[in-house]
């Protein structure tokens, strides 16, 4: 774990805890592994690794109905598989969902297999009218709790998108 990476992971965990998130359901992406490991080893959270990203949507939506704060953590590719679940559950029933994903395919991501995410992730979010907040710098991590609280007011889903520079450092 690099210095910046571990510091960002810890600050993300602190920010989640500060706004009452207890359950974190995750599927990995290399960029968020430090966040996942930090949450897994933090007693403030119940971390549930899930079999597919839609399961995280279902789990977090149910947790909301049970009055437990929650967050779904996944890669950009995983997000691209959950449009049905989000539109059917979180829009139909107006159930808040706080989702955190990676901004794959953007500047700084050298993986060619994520070019499709660079091309389509943001347009897909726009197409389903799902607000998002890009977090690129450590000093912006505080936006997490503001966005989380907004999901509770807005009663619909919202995505936080983490950049590579934030999670792994620039290269």
């Amino acid at each position, binding site marked *: 774990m690099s210095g910046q990476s571990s510091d960002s992971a810890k600050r993300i965990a602190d920010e989640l805890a500060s706004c009452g998130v207890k359950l974190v359901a995750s599927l990995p992406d290399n960029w968020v592994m430090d966040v996942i490991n930090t949450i897994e080893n933090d007693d403030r959270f119940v971390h549930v690794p899930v*079999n597919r990203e839609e*399961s995280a949507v279902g789990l977090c939506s149910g*947790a*909301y109905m*049970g*009055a437990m704060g929650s967050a779904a953590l996944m890669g950009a590719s995983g997000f691209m598989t959950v449009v049905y*679940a989000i539109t059917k559950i979180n829009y*139909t*029933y107006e159930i808040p969902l706080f989702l955190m994903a990676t901004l794959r395919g953007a500047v700084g991501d050298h993986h060619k297999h994520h070019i499709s995410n660079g091309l389509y992730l943001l347009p897909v979010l726009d197409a389903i009218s799902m607000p998002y907040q890009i977090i690129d710098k450590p000093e912006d991590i505080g936006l997490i709790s503001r966005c989380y609280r907004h999901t*509770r007011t807005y009663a619909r889903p919202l995505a936080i998108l983490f950049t590579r520079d934030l999670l792994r450092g620039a290269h």
Partner: protein
Amino acid sequence: MKYLDCFRAIARHRTDEIVVASAGNSCQAWWAATRDSVGSFYLDASMSLSSMFASGIALAQPELKVWAFMGDGAFCMNPGMLMVERQMNLPNLTHFLVSNRVYGATSNAGLPNFKDNDYAAIARGMGLERVFAISSIDQLEREFPALKAANAKAHTFVVLEVEPFTDEEQKIEQPPFDGPELKFRFGRHLESKTGASVFGYKI
């Protein structure tokens, strides 16, 4: 076992369980059997996610008993859910898999490998220990006390082998609620049962 008879029998055994019904016929059948509009969440159009939704509630409120219904059509879309359920192993969650061997909500369209799917074996293969397979009302009446045991130490998975809806049964009423209406009915019910604040504010 007739689908509706099965649900009526389960409804007779219900005491204060919270219920999540799934997309398709299980919403219709539970509504027909109970007319419950507060302690049941009709998670229509949520293919394969009713047990995950119910798991979130059960995790958040361990004092509640939570039942989740799901058709085998939904199950086939996401059988890995059982890995998550086994890992969470919530003793207050019972997952009823309603096996009618068709996609019931879409006019009983064919389900892949429907003759050979052994859902109880799949569950056991994923490590679940409290697995029941029920194929008649008599068996359901005999086994329900055991599957509903208050002191169960693990998650419970129940396969209900039922006949598909007939053409006439397909016409029975869907729960007549809009999404946000259901959310508030159900959420306010949970608030009153648990004292928890689901919505964070009251008008």
